[in-house]
């Protein structure tokens, strides 16, 4: 039976299943040339690894190591600053939102889409569009971290923050019967104004359950651009609710 290099290569790494490993073992026992071929393939690894070790034998450039050192120092500073500012305050980044924040780096790039349906809702808010008013009512009155029924939709506020223009904003998801969107809206002139939206896959689980990293990180790039400072904690959110999200 012909033993291919793919089998030999897998054998070399002990990555074949036991039946295949046994097959190759038996073949090698009966055929000296197979042993030579195996040695040749193995030698490739040795040569390539030795070359890489030799070429990179010099120290890592100091300016690259300094990048890591600078990051550690800035972490210490920001931790001290945050501890001073937020002592005894519980940040409203709980449950799924913790994972949402941790997953921020995962959204390399998500193309924002113009959500015609939502834009129409937003445009229609001044004329009393009921669907958007139901969403806005949740944004007005509920803290982050839980899903709320708003008519036929489920709205889940995920994060509240101050943007660089000084307006209070909320990142949230809306699940309807046919669509699932992640959105950011900011309270301006007494109304929630859409700042960004992206269509997501329909969730598999129940509303309010932890959703995929993609759904939770879809608007990271936008947040990075417009968010000023840390997200509001629960107490700050409750204060914002009492003042109707006016700064």
């Amino acid at each position, binding site marked *: 039976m012909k033993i291919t290099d793919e089998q030999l290569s897998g054998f070399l790494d002990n990555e074949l299943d036991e039946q295949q490993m046994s097959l190759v073992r038996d073949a090698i026992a009966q055929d000296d*040339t197979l042993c030579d071929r195996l040695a040749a393939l193995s030698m490739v690894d040795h040569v390539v690894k030795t*070359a890489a070790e030799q070429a990179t034998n010099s120290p890592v450039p100091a300016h690259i190591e300094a990048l890591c050192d600078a990051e550690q120092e800035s972490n210490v500073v920001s931790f001290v600053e945050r501890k001073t500012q937020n002592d005894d305050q519980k940040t409203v980044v709980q449950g799924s939102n913790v994972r949402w924040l941790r997953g921020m780096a995962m959204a390399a790039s998500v193309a924002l889409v113009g959500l015609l349906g939502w834009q129409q809702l937003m445009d229609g808010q001044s004329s009393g569009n009921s669907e958007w008013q139901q969403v806005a009512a949740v944004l007005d009155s509920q803290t982050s971290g839980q899903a709320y029924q708003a008519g036929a939709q489920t709205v889940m506020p995920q994060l509240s923050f101050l943007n660089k223009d000084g307006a209070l904003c909320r990142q949230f998801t809306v699940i309807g019967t046919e669509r699932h969107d992640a959105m950011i809206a900011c309270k301006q002139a007494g109304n929630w104004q859409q700042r960004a939206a992206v269509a997501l896959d329909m969730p598999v689980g129940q509303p309010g359950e932890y959703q995929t990293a993609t759904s939770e990180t879809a608007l990271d790039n936008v947040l990075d651009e417009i968010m000023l400072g840390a997200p509001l904690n629960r107490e700050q959110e409750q204060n914002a609710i009492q003042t109707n999200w006016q700064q």
Partner: protein
Amino acid sequence: MTTTQSAQLKSMLPVLRRFAYSLTGSMADADDLLQNTVEKLLSKPIPEDVELLAWSYRVCRNLWIDEYRANKVRQAAVHKPELQHTDIDATSQITADITLKQVESAMATLPDEQREVLSLVAVQGMSYQDTATVLSVPSGTVMSRLARARTKLAQILNLDKGNEVTA
């Protein structure tokens, strides 16, 4: 990135650098790619449920695909004296018969997808499954690419000494 992660990243720099070298085939490009990788890693939080080294490999590889495979940086590096490493002796012996320069030349003949698999498995010692995760390909693909890479290098470097080597 947390303080722990940045300390961990610093300790991983030599390994990551070796991977960057394996991908780019030159120390000038490797250090430039390493710097860009570190900057990218530091620019955003890293999910705590991922393994930092595998995540770093993935970032490094993606940057290499985006910026280095087209040789843009390689060409740019020619004009950056600070990126030129003159302390690497290309004539140094890897084995009695093979020099570093010969290995680099042989690696350069491999298709990118074979070189990255060989780098992860042979140089970094990763399993097929871990390699498949980093590259987002099935582990069967890792196996076949790796076999082709080994076969080709064995031929180019004359390691098979005339034995029949089949793909």
